[in-house]
């Protein structure tokens, strides 16, 4: 009974202080909006209008038809026609174009010959995104009207992006971005929470009162869970209004996943807070955890494409599991039961971090 009322006293105090701390309050609202605008507008991996030069040494009806189909995809923007492969290479080297298409003189014959490539794509491989797109181009079906009958062109595989057919970046980015924003804000808030009181001397007073470590820890975490859920609402709203990002699955499922994820980050933040001695160190530690949460969680790069070691590191980050949850629920309409293992990880992570923080924070000064 007394314990509960002490817990409420701590929560009330935290909320009161939070509402007076303009900077933190601004971060709660400003940071998600700024990030979503930044990622939504500036970072665009949709590839359209790659500058392209074509050397058509065949100049037949068939080759002109191929060029027309290529242009229709809108992936390439044909800016010039050149005569020789050498000029193509020079243009590529100078950066005038990103893609060079070489149509050899015997194009018509090559099309019917399954042993030889009909067209050569010269690609600026210095940009990985362009390279990936060119790989897709190579699989473009040569669906000529004059389709030379009977050619079994196995390489012409059609790519059909599920769940995001328009291949719009924000749809992929926003679910992952939720995880990144929450990692950043939640961890930062609690990482400085205890250290700030230590620096201001409040802790010396608090630990001399009947407040227990657990009451202090939980009392500090609870207000931020609410803030985290508000942030999620904000991100979803802005994502929906500006970028038309859908929530195809259950919003309740999404919130259950988010609450657990927020708790995991808060617990980690608290642990950091008990391990460092100044607010500055707390911020450094937050960045230390934030970077892998962005780079190794599957937010930036496909998880399966990463080296094994990076995958192992990624597996222990809460954000990795949260991104799987949000992409599943928001885009693939998955239910939470199908993603239970990710939830279990988050629950276990929270428990361990919370216990570790509680153990590290002793009610003593030495």
């Amino acid at each position, binding site marked *: 009974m*007394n314990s509960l*009322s*002490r817990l*409420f*006293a*701590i929560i*009330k*105090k935290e909320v*009161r*202080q939070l509402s*007076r*701390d303009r900077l933190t309050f601004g971060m709660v609202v400003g940071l998600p909006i700024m990030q979503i605008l930044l990622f939504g507008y500036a970072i665009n991996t949709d590839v359209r209008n790659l500058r392209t030069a074509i050397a058509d040494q065949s100049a037949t009806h068939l080759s002109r038809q191929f060029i027309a189909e290529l242009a229709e995809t809108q992936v390439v923007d044909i800016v010039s026609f050149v005569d020789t492969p050498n000029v193509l290479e020079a243009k590529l080297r100078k950066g005038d174009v990103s893609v060079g298409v070489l149509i050899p003189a015997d194009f018509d014959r090559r099309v019917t010959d399954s042993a030889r490539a009909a067209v050569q794509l010269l690609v600026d491989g210095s940009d990985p995104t362009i390279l990936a797109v060119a790989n897709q181009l190579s699989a473009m079906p040569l669906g000529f009207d004059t389709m030379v009958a009977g050619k079994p062109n196995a390489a012409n595989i059609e790519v059909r992006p599920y769940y995001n057919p328009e291949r719009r970046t924000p749809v992929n980015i926003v679910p992952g971005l939720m995880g990144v924003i929450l990692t950043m804000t939640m961890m930062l808030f609690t990482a400085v929470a205890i250290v700030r009181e230590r620096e*201001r*001397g*409040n*802790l*010396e*007073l*608090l*630990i*001399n*009162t*009947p*407040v227990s470590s657990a009451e202090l820890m939980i009392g500090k975490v609870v207000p931020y869970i609410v803030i985290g859920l508000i942030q999620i609402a904000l991100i979803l709203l802005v994502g929906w209004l500006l970028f038309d990002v859908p929530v195809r699955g259950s919003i309740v499922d999404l919130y259950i996943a988010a609450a657990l994820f927020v708790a995991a980050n808060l617990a980690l933040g608290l642990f950091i807070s008990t391990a460092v001695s100044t607010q500055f160190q707390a911020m450094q530690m937050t960045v230390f955890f934030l970077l892998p949460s962005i780079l190794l969680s599957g937010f930036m790069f496909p998880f399966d494409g990463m080296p094994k070691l990076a995958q192992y590191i990624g597996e222990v980050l809460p954000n990795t599991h949260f991104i799987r949850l949000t992409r599943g629920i928001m885009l693939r309409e998955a239910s939470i039961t199908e993603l239970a293992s990710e939830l279990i990880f988050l629950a276990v992570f929270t428990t361990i971090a919370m216990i570790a923080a509680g153990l590290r924070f002793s009610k*003593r*000064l*030495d």
Partner: protein
Amino acid sequence: MNANLAIEARGLSKYFGDLRAVSSLDLEVPRGKIYGFLGPNGSGKSTTIRMLCGLLTPTEGDATVLGTVIPGNSKALRPKIGYMTQKFSLFGDMSVFENLQFISEIYSYPAKDRSTRIGELLLKYDLRDQRDQLAGTMSGGQKQRLALACAVLHHPELLLLDEPTSAVDPQSRRDFWSNLFRLAESGTTIMVSTHYMDEAERCHRLAILDRGVKVADGTPQQLQASTGMHIVEVVGEDPYAAQAALIDVPEIVSVTQLGVRLRVLIPISVSDPTSLVLQALAQHRVSAAAEVTHATLEDVFVAVTLKSAERVT
């Protein structure tokens, strides 16, 4: 354990690595008294107070505080102790009222009596005008009154005050001490550390700490009577010359200047201290008057810390 003692420490020690912050401290603090802890900065006052309220674990020794043995179950002790930290430790971004309210909730003060108690404290500690002011924006004296109000809100039996007056003006100090006397009269035991002599003189009992060692212990009167020194006061026109004349006399242990007067400490074994001083002055052709006087606490402090310095070297 003597029931009349609020604190009884036996061989209490605290080392931080090689630094002996407090060494084998024995203390007896009677209930309902104001017990002073006098010593220069770094003498181990704060460390001792922190050990007594369970914030620091003693390296050696133990203490019985209000019947509870430290180190041990300091949790049971917390509701009975009020602690005022050296540095202001309340919440600067909350108002005076909110701070008091928070403390009352933390100590589970009966909900129905909370507002009465807070009103009482606002009145008693002259904080009614600052009720809704943020604590961080108040003056040193106001902060200190708020800190004391928060420390006594839950009617603690024992009040531990760590240099409570180091950041306030003399008027605030006087008011603060009259509050302490009022609390002691109502039965609260108060342990207060200070480095001000005038404050030490107001204590019922006091201990002098130097480099972690207790060098004297008793009532101010007892301490003044047992310095083991003659105190000779020298008044002359040229105190500098007088000081120069006296400083090299082997029997004289200390010469302290107070304005135009000099206070000269001479061991009790010297039978005629006045003529010793006058002779030394005459040798250097300094004209000044000398007479034996009573020891002040400052003299006591100088005498005992000198002895302890000799012991160390």
